[in-house]
């Protein structure tokens, strides 16, 4: 497995003692442009202080599996908030219908994504149990969006799980507007954890290497792990792409990373 690190050795972090009990609910927050959007909030019971994680759902939508990820972070002792990025186009629709609608319309505009993630971060920080630190995580298209948010907002940590279209553009003719993001690496505001599959073609290992080169050039704090035998979507337990060993190690890296940067 390829691992590369450029970490802040002074950051360690520890979680407050907790019961693993939590509260999970659907709320409404003011998203980009003040739009009222749906969001899923999972938070540990207790006074905290807790770090926060904005969970960015993948292109298939604000679905059960991504809500499970939010609850996993609450179980780990974080306030997790996942905005429904498709609230505007498909309020109340099932996640797959909403995803199909947004997909047919060309996806979520980058500017709106940044606004919604910023609003989610602001909401987490407004909670009495927040320690004032917020990170982001996303998978697939959400991985790119997590990176985009970290280059556009002041965050404390960001995790990119196999996000495509960061280095290379999407194929010509694609109706989804996703521009490469390497030009804004200089604006990365926080440590970055990248988790990739060596057999993935989007992003390919070559693209991951280019991204790392830019991070080094700009002196950014980052940590990359690339797993052999794993392709795209190796975290997805209900897909043939699931790779238990890569996913297990990946979750451990995520836990260590967020503990280091969101709890100290």
């Amino acid at each position, binding site marked *: 497995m390829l691992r590369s690190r450029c970490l802040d050795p002074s950051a360690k972090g520890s979680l407050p003692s907790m019961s693993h009990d939590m509260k999970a609910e659907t709320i409404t927050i003011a998203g980009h442009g003040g739009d009222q959007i749906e969001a899923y909030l999972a938070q540990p019971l207790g006074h905290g202080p807790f770090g926060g994680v904005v969970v960015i759902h993948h292109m298939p939508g604000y679905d059960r599996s991504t809500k499970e990820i939010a609850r996993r972070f609450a179980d780990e002792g974080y306030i997790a908030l996942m905005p429904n990025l498709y609230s505007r186009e*498909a309020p109340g629709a099932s996640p797959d*219908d909403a995803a*199909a609608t947004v997909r047919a319309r060309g996806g979520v505009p980058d500017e709106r994504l940044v606004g919604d993630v910023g609003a989610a971060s602001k909401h987490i920080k407004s909670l009495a149990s927040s320690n004032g630190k917020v990170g982001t995580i996303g998978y697939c298209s959400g991985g790119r969006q997590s990176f985009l948010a970290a280059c556009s907002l002041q965050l404390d940590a960001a995790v990119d799980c196999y996000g*495509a279209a960061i280095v290379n553009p999407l194929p010509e003719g694609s109706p989804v507007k996703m521009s490469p993001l390497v030009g804004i690496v200089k604006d990365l505001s926080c440590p970055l954890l990248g988790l990739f599959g060596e057999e*993935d073609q*989007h992003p390919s290992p070559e693209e991951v290497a280019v991204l790392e080169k830019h991070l080094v050039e700009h002196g950014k704090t980052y940590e990359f792990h690339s797993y052999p035998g794993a*392709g795209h979507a190796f975290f997805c337990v209900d897909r*043939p792409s699931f790779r238990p060993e890569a996913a297990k190690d990946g979750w451990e890296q995520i836990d260590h990373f967020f503990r280091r940067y969101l709890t100290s």
Partner: protein
Amino acid sequence: MCTYETEHVPISGSGKGPAGWFSLSAATVYFDHPVHAAAEHTLNVDFLNPDLGPSARVAVELDPASALALARAIIAAVETAEAFTGTVVR
């Protein structure tokens, strides 16, 4: 990967969803991750009526060979209908 590429096809007909029959006005065709099918990628077709909202959707996720066989069967059926009725629809 997510291919993102989508074919948009105006159509006319009807489909049956969870709430019953409704008129169809559009279809989208794309190759991407399925929601339900046990495959990494599938050929997906959504039969839609956008005027009725996102839930007015009949979705299928097919393995590529099945999709191709279905497309050929549709063409063959239309050709048979053309020969039978004497009406060319293409």
